């Protein structure tokens, strides 16, 4: 029964987010729109932001993907809604470092909210990209070229 090992990846919170994703809709007043694809599996994310005075006033996503990519997008929208552009980009970097297994402080992880639970994905290297697709989309739509 080595499927028990799956519990490390698919925690209850992750399954909840993928089954009932938050902010999964398009925005009426989007100021930025971006579509990113994961070429290895064909997953697609359309990310929409409504920026106001350097703040993410609203965020939504559509598209299709696996449990990890869907839950990651859902948790990301929770983490960055209402935050400034700089804070959101900072969170994106914390997330990227976390899943790559780099060191991070407890305080930083707390800022990610539910998304911190995806640290489990680093034990499944083939799935790291599933979790980072939405964060790449965020970085790109905030004018930052993601380099990883």
């Amino acid at each position: 029964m080595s499927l028990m090992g799956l519990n490390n990846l698919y925690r209850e919170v992750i399954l909840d987010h993928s089954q009932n994703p938050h902010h999964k809709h398009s925005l009426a007043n989007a100021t930025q729109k971006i579509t990113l694809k994961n070429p290895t599996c064909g997953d697609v994310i359309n990310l929409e932001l409504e920026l106001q005075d350097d703040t993410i006033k609203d965020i939504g996503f559509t598209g299709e993907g696996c449990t990890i990519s869907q839950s990651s997008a859902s948790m990301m929208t929770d983490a960055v809604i209402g935050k400034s552009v700089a804070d959101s980009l900072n969170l994106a970097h914390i997330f990227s470092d976390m899943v790559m297994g780099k060191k991070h402080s407890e305080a930083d992880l707390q800022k990610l909210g539910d998304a911190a639970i995806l640290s489990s994905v680093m034990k499944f290297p083939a799935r790291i990209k599933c979790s980072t697709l939405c964060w790449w989309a965020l970085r790109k739509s905030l004018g930052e070229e993601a380099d990883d």
Partner: protein
Amino acid sequence: MDNKFQKIRNDFPILNQKVNGEPLVYLDSAATSQKPQAVIDGLIHYYQNDNANVHRSVYTLGQRATEEYENARQKVQRFINAKEDKEVIFTKGATDSLNLVASTYGEEHIKAGDEIVISIMEHHSNLIPWQQLAIRKQAKLKYIGLTKNGELDMKDAAQQITDKTKIVAIAHASNVLGVTNDIKELARIAHSHNAVIVADGAQAVPHQKVDVQDLDVDFYAFSGHKMLSPMGIGVLYGKKALLEAMRPYQYGGEMIDFVEKQKSTWTDLPWKFEAGTQNVAGAIGLGEAIDYLNEIGIDQVKAHEEELVEYLLPKLLQDQDLEVYGPHDPKKHNGVISFNIKGLHPHDVATALDMEGISVRAGHHCAQPLMKELGVVATVRASFYLYNTKADADKLLRAIAETKEFFKV
């Protein structure tokens, strides 16, 4: 039969290991096959005893390497029943072979308004070279569709191939749907319109008897690594008259006759298409693999895979939670089975199966237009080869059941 094939498994050292605490069940041979000890030994022997550059060395090692390299070519010639060994060109793999044809024969013969006909089930390697050629030449790329059963629509083929068609390029066997296409009939149709036919045999040569003369193909491409050989070696078969008339693919060492300051002439087939230092060890490994397959018998390999599919496919079809792609008749299926667990993404399924030690492919299998046609983003694919057994099929079925339970499907 299973007993004999149970023993075959022991010839593949990589299969004797645990993955995530479970015995490895390798079900991704359509992506690449594992290698028997005999092939691995062949590579080691070459590098320990005979390594030298071929065709240009006067000394003994060079002669030995050349002899083994050309010997491998003759093994390929006999394996696919080519008329002459000079019709067998070594390449990096099927992709390289297909690009070779597109950028030489294709480049020379396709003109604005001409048609190139492929099928909707093509792997990207037999799609993009033609698509890009069509764009360069302002030619028209046309697709043969599928029947409701997920087979190539031969009626549509007869419609799509016309007097404007110059090249027909079709997979001999699909890497997603598990079907074998009637290349012989397609060749007949193509030739009746004075078009040439290029067959992508990457999924066929490892699993069934291929006779290029009987099929009457003009070009036939395949890879070594899907048929027990190392990666980086492949074959392009071409009819001699066509190959002789074609310009070289790449320029460099060993493909020349005379080189002057302002012009050059080319050497004979097959070396005209083998510029630069070749993958000699790879070719020798391919020769070893052919010896290994011949010893078992390629028809036996085919029968073994058919037996596995006949066992597994009906069980998968019985499961209401599964969607199985390609024909549902096991007799029309080779060892490639694509499916999805309804409501679950194939990547999640593949990760779950991996935790049970089972290697399957999840994704679009380099066939995005086909995925679109099937109305899916991606699928899970289990593919079987001579070293797989019914026990492997049972483990797959059990792991699918546990995966459904885990994700509460």
